[in-house]
């Protein structure tokens, strides 16, 4: 019968008060840890996905939206800009790379992004299988996409119009997967990349008026389309091997597309020198229908907006933990009243004051460490369940199976709370006058 076991038995013997303290502490830990896990991963995503882009030139609208859309692939486009008119950025002597991106189509709600190979280099993406796209309607896809939809090299797919799960598809012209990228933990993982020309060809004669518009159709039409889609798949598979891509056809179509109608959603700019920021944004902002947004500034502002909310959550968690500590303290002090005879008896049986002191302190420690462990377990489990939901909505992958160094600080905090809550009761037990206690029958 060591003290640890007695402490444990004492905790179990009072399931209600122990349970309450345990649950409060656990809740506090869960709130703190889920906040930490989420913000840590969001920060990491934002860092990984920044790609060193200094400036985004997009259609006039919200700057934050254009950054979220074009860099982080979260929000919808602000509109389109004419590609030919972005020459000022591409030719600017202080610009290192000016990468066009065109966003507006999807494959099963995952974005098809039309761009140049520089975009892949921005994120140091590497080809795992196959190659990067070359001809129109060739696509190189992210690792998550390949996994999720089991798309292999040579597979064909139809792009959907708009960014949501759309019903209207470009069925006549199918994309062919020519390459799969290595996992990079950046936006690349969840994108299907293709050339700008692909999008221009698909939307030729089709007045594609900025992105993000969902096509609303009736349920009947939807069902009919679904049936057609299934046929399409059979069709695809049947013709898979003897279908030839006639690139000359595409050239012909391209020739007919006026440069005035060749549009992109944004230009992602990296500077050769930071001095570029004194001229380039000004030019962009003075160009009709365009604006310049600096990701660093926009994201800093976004975080500034979120910060107080995170702080409030933190304060709430602290409050719960303080309540947990108080509840533990009160529960132990109360139980001590009933247990003064027990403590006297232990002393009679040969337990030293230090032993009695340690027993009470250990009860506090056991409770707080147990609360911590349950909190950590449920936080990670919850985060993992939550991550599916986040992935569905943002196409960012989150996980519950990462471990933060802050969890060690939390453990230290939990131990401290156990000690603080149990210290006074333990001192009281230590000071128990056994003779007096036993005389007051």
């Amino acid at each position: 019968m060591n003290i640890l076991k007695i402490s444990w038995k004492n905790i179990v013997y009072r399931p209600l008060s122990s349970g309450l303290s345990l649950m409060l502490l656990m809740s506090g830990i869960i709130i703190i840890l889920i906040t930490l896990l989420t913000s840590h991963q969001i920060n990491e995503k934002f860092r990984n996905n920044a790609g060193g882009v200094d400036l985004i030139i997009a259609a006039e609208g919200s700057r934050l939206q254009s950054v979220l859309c074009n860099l982080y692939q979260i929000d919808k486009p602000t509109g389109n800009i004419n590609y030919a008119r972005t020459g000022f950025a591409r030719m600017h002597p202080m610009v290192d790379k000016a990468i066009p991106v065109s966003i507006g189509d999807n494959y099963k709600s995952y974005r098809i992004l039309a761009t140049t190979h520089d975009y892949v280099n921005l994120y140091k993406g590497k080809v795992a299988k196959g190659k990067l796209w070359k001809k129109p309607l060739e696509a190189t896809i992210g690792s998550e996409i390949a996994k999720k939809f089991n798309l292999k090299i040579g597979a064909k797919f139809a792009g959907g119009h708009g960014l949501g799960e759309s019903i209207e598809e470009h069925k006549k012209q199918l994309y062919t997967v020519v390459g799969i990228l290595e996992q990079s933990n950046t936006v690349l993982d969840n994108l299907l990349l293709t050339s700008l020309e692909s999008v221009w060809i698909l939307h030729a004669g089709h007045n594609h008026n900025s992105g993000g518009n969902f096509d609303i159709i009736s349920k009947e039409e939807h069902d009919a389309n679904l049936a057609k889609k299934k046929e399409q798949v059979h069709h695809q598979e049947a013709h898979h091997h003897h279908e030839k891509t006639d690139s000359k056809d595409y050239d012909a179509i391209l020739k007919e597309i006026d440069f005035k109608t060749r549009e992109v959603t944004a230009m992602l700019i990296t500077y050769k020198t930071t001095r570029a920021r004194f001229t380039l944004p000004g030019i962009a902002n003075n160009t009709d229908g365009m604006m310049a947004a600096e990701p660093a500034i926009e994201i800093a502002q976004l975080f500034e907006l979120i910060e107080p909310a995170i702080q409030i959550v933190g304060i709430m968690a602290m409050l719960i933990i303080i309540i947990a500590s108080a509840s533990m303290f009160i529960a132990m002090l109360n139980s001590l009243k009933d247990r003064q005879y027990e403590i006297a008896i232990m002393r009679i049986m040969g337990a030293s004051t230090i032993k009695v002191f340690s027993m009470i302190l250990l009860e506090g420690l056991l409770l707080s460490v147990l609360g911590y462990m349950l909190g950590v377990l449920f936080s990670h489990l919850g985060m993992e369940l939550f991550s599916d939901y986040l992935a569905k909505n943002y196409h960012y992958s989150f996980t519950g199976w990462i471990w933060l160094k802050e969890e060690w600080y939390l453990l230290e905090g939990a131990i401290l709370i156990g000690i603080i809550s149990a210290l006074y009761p333990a001192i009281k037990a230590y000071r128990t006058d056994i003779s007096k206690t036993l005389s007051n029958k």
Partner: protein
Amino acid sequence: MLKTINLKYNYTNEVQLSFPNMEFEQGSQALILGRSGCGKTTLLHLLSGLLKPSEGAVFIGGTDLNLLSGSKLDFFRGQEIGIVFQTPHFIDALTVKENLFLAQTLAGNKKDLASISNLLADLSILDKLNVGTKELSQGQKQRVSIARALINSPKLILADEPTSALDDDNCVAVVNLLKTQAKKHNATLLIVTHDNRLSSSFDLKVQL
């Protein structure tokens, strides 16, 4: 075996209790009688080292309790003295068996289920081995507390009004158990009481 010399205790500044000198052989059994408030419990606490005397000394088996302090005294008490109280108290979170294990380990002995079972069988409460102490009747509790006092085979057993909360039948049973068990373990038995029902059972009596 047990010897007190000139034992005095200042209860408050005005009230000083002084006790007659006593000396008992190993294995002797005695009653210490006195009316309420004459310091019976105080004497018992002095004998067991729970209280320090203001003057005088207590020797148990040649050891001067005044010379032991802190955890040494606690340990000595656990090993050498078994105490039975009027109202028995236990660690409620533990079963009878675990309470007795605790008594063994706190006194520095190994857990010994065989000796616990033997003792409980002698006290005819072996069936309560795995029962929580809250579920015992008053008489059963007193038997378990006797078992706890005896479990480490102490040299000295002190009992403070062990029978005053019991009816006549239980009173006789408990006294007989104390006497036979003390004899069996060759322990000195001192019972502090005002319960006259016990007078006839003891030859050796000290009047306070």
